[in-house]
C-alpha cells in the first residue's frame, strides 16, 4: 500500500523521534548484552590475562552454595508481586472515584516512585533499626516487649527489604491501573449495575477481567523487577547481602563476584543463568494470563 505524502512524512517523523532512544538502548543495553555473552565462558577479570574456560563458570555456579542461596532468595522475592498488584489495584480503584482532593492522593501515592531509591532505602533503614520508629510504635502499642532487629535478624531481613520494594512500587503500578480503569467503558459497569450487580460483583466480573491485560503487564514488570532486585538490598544490607547472605539475591551476588572479587567471567555466567530464569517466568506468565481484556467475553 502506497503511503500518502502526509503519511510518509509522519512515518519519517516517527522514526526520527525514535532514533535517540534506540541509539541509547543500542549503546548501553544491546551492545553490552552481546559482549556479556562470551564473557560467561572466560575467566575475564579486567586486570589479569583472559582465558577461555568453556562451561567451567556454569559448573562452578551449580556447585556454589552462595549461588543457590541467592537464587532461593530471588525466587522468594517474587512474593512481593501479588501483594504489590493487589494493593495497587485497590489504590487505583480508590483514586478512580470522584473524591475531593483526588489529585492530591494520586500525587501522594506517586511520590515514592520518584524518590531516589538510595534515599528511600536509607530512610527505611532508620525505620527498621532497633531504636527506629517501627519498633517504637510496636512497643507503644504493646505488641512487642523488646525491640526486634529487623535489620540483623536473618529471618526478617529479606521481608524488610520487600516492604521497601512494595512501598516504592505501589504508585507506579497504581498509575498504570488507573489508566486501565479509565479505559474501561463505563456503559459496561452501568449495565451490570442496572442488572442488579452489587459493587463487588461489578469489580470482580467487569472491572478485573477487563483490567487483565494491565494486570498481566504489571505482573510481568514486577516479576522481572523482583528477580532483579538490587538497589534496596545494596543500600540496606551491602554487597554481601548481609546478615550472612540472608538478603543475597542473584543481582547482588552478581555484583559481588564481578565488582568485589573481579570475577567478571563468573559474574556474567551467573547473570546469564538469571536471565534465562526470568525468560522462563515470562513465558509462563504469558501462557497463563493470555485471557482477559475484551476477549474475556468472546
Amino acid at each position, binding site marked *: 500500500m502506497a503511503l500518502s505524502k502526509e503519511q510518509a512524512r*509522519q512515518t519519517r*517523523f516517527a522514526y526520527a*523521534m525514535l532514533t*535517540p*532512544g534506540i541509539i*541509547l538502548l543500542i549503546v*548501553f*543495553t544491546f*551492545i*553490552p*548484552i*552481546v*559482549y*556479556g555473552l562470551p*564473557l*560467561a565462558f572466560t575467566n*575475564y577479570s*579486567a*586486570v*589479569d590475562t*583472559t582465558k577461555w574456560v568453556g562451561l567451567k563458570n556454569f559448573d562452578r555456579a551449580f556447585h556454589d552454595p552462595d549461588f543457590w542461596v541467592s537464587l532461593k532468595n530471588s525466587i522468594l522475592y517474587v512474593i512481593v508481586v501479588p501483594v504489590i498488584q493487589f494493593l495497587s489495584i485497590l489504590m487505583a480503584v480508590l483514586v478512580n472515584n470522584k473524591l475531593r482532593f483526588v489529585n492530591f492522593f494520586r500525587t501522594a501515592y506517586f511520590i515514592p516512585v520518584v524518590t531516589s531509591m*538510595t534515599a528511600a532505602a536509607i530512610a527505611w533503614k532508620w525505620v527498621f*533499626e*532497633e*531504636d527506629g520508629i517501627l519498633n517504637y510504635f510496636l512497643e507503644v502499642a504493646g505488641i512487642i516487649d*523488646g*525491640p526486634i*532487629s529487623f*535489620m*540483623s*535478624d*536473618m529471618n526478617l531481613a529479606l521481608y524488610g527489604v520487600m516492604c521497601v520494594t512494595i512501598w516504592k512500587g505501589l504508585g507506579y503500578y497504581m498509575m498504570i491501573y488507573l489508566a486501565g480503569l479509565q479505559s474501561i467503558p463505563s456503559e459496561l459497569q452501568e449495565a451490570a449495575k442496572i442488572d442488579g450487580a452489587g459493587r463487588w460483583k461489578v469489580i470482580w466480573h467487569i472491572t478485573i477481567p477487563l483490567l487483565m491485560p494491565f494486570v498481566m503487564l504489571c505482573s510481568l514488570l514486577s516479576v522481572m523487577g523482583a528477580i*532483579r532486585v*538490587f*538497589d534496596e538490598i*545494596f543500600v540496606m*544490607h*551491602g554487597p*554481601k547481602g*548481609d*546478615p*550472612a*547472605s540472608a538478603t543475597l539475591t542473584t*543481582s547482588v551476588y*552478581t*555484583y559481588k563476584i*564481578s*565488582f*568485589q*572479587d*573481579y570475577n*567478571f567471567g563468573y*559474574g*556474567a*555466567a*551467573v*547473570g*546469564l543463568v*538469571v*536471565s534465562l530464569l526470568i525468560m522462563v517466568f515470562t513465558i509462563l506468565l504469558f501462557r497463563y494470563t493470555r485471557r482477559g481484556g475484551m476477549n474475556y467475553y468472546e
Partner: protein
Amino acid sequence: MSKRYRSFALLLAMVMLISLIAACGSGSSSDKNNTAQTPGTTTETTNTNTDTAKKEEPKQEPVELKFWTISLSPNFDDYINGRIKKFEDENPGITVKWTDLPYGSMENKLLTSIAGGKSPDVVNLNTGMTMTLAGKNALVDLNKEATEEQRSIYFPDLYNSTKLGESVYAFPWYYGLSVFAYNKKIYEEAGLDPNKPPTTYEEMKQQAIIIKEKTGKYGFVPTYNPPADFYFLGVPIISEDKKTIIVDTPEALEWAKWNKDLYDQGIVPKDSLSADANYATDKYQAGKIASLTTGAQFLSRVKTNAKDVYDNTLIAKMPTLKPGGNVQAGLMNVVVPTMSTHHKEAILFANFITNDESQLEFCKIVNILPSTKKAAADPFFTQAGTDPESQAKVITAQMASMGKDFSLGVKNEGDVLDPLWKGWKEMLNGKVTPEEMLKKAQAEMQKKLDEINASE
C-alpha cells in the same frame, strides 16, 4: 499533524533524551551492575590494553605520573601539592598529576582504568584492596623492583602486610589506631568512675552490663571482625606453609561464646550485626551509646556533629583482647600498578610520598601514625594537649609498636575468610552454636583454600 502537536512531541522527545542521558551519567553503579550485561563494556576496552601498554615512552622524554589518593582532598590539598612540588623540584623531567577519589569509588575506578589501558602510576589503597589486586597480578612486586634502600625505611611488620608468597605489593603509608572514646556523662549516670575506663574486653563487658542496667543505654557497639580478632587472640588461622586452616581452637571458641553471650543478653545492640562503618559513630554522637572505638582521626566528626558529646568525651587506650597483644592497624598503602608505563619513576615517587619527611609532615596536620621508623621516633608524638583529639594522638602513638594489619597472605583472601564472617553472623542469629560455627567455618575455609592452591 498539527504544528502544536509536533512541537510538543519534539519537546517531549528532547526531555526524554536528556533525562536518559542524565540517568546514564548519574547511573549509580547499581543501575549498571545489576545484570550480567555490564562487563561487556569493559571487554571492549581491554582489547586495546596491550597496545597502549606497549607504547613505552623513551626515557629522556618528560614523564607524567598519575597519582591517585583516597579522600585526601580538599582537606590536605596544601600538603599533597607541597610534597608534589618538592618531588618535581628534586626530579626534573618528572611531573605528577594528582587525582583524589572518594573511598567508595576507588576500586571500580582503578579497575576500569586498568582495563581501559589508562592506568594511573601511583595509587593509594588499603590493605584489602591491595591484596585483591595483587592476587590478580595487577601490581608491581616491590621486592623485585624497588631498591633495598627504598624498602628499608618502613617498620617490617607494616611493610609485610601486603606480602603474598615472596612478593610484597605496597609501600605502607599512614595508619590510624583506634582509641576508646567514652562519654563521661553516661558513665557518671551509670555510677561508674569516669577515670577508670576498661583496659580489657572483659572489663568493658562488665561496665556495659552496668550501663545498660542503670541508664538503659548500650555500653559499646562491638565491631565484629572475626578474622582479625582471632588473629590477635593468637589463633593461627592459617599454617606457616599457607596450606592448612586452623580456626577451631579453644581461644577461638572462647571468644565466640563470649560474643554470643553478649549478643543474646542484649548488652550490645542487635543492630551491631548489620552495622556499617557509620553506625557506632552516629549512635555515639547521638548520646545513645556510652563509648566509641574509633580512629583518632575520626573524632573530629563527633566534634563537628555533636559539640556537647565531644565536650564530654574522654579518651583512653583501646581495651586489648589479651594483655600485651597486638592491635589492628588500618593501614593505607601506596602501590604501583603493573600497567603503569613508568615503573621506576613511579616507585621513586611512591617511596618519596611515604618517606620519613613526608610522613612526619603529614602526621603533624592530621591525627595519623607514620609507617616509617624514623618518623615514628619524632618527639612530636609525645607532646600532648588536653583536648580529646590531642590526647588521642599521644595514646595512639604509645600503641604504635603494637600495630599490625591482619592479612592471610594468600590470593583471594576474601573468599577464604568469607565462611568465617558468615558463620559468625549465623551464630549470633542463633542458627548454629559456636562449636558448630567454628567446625563448619574451618571446613569451608579449607575447601576454598584448597581450591585456590590447586588453581596455581
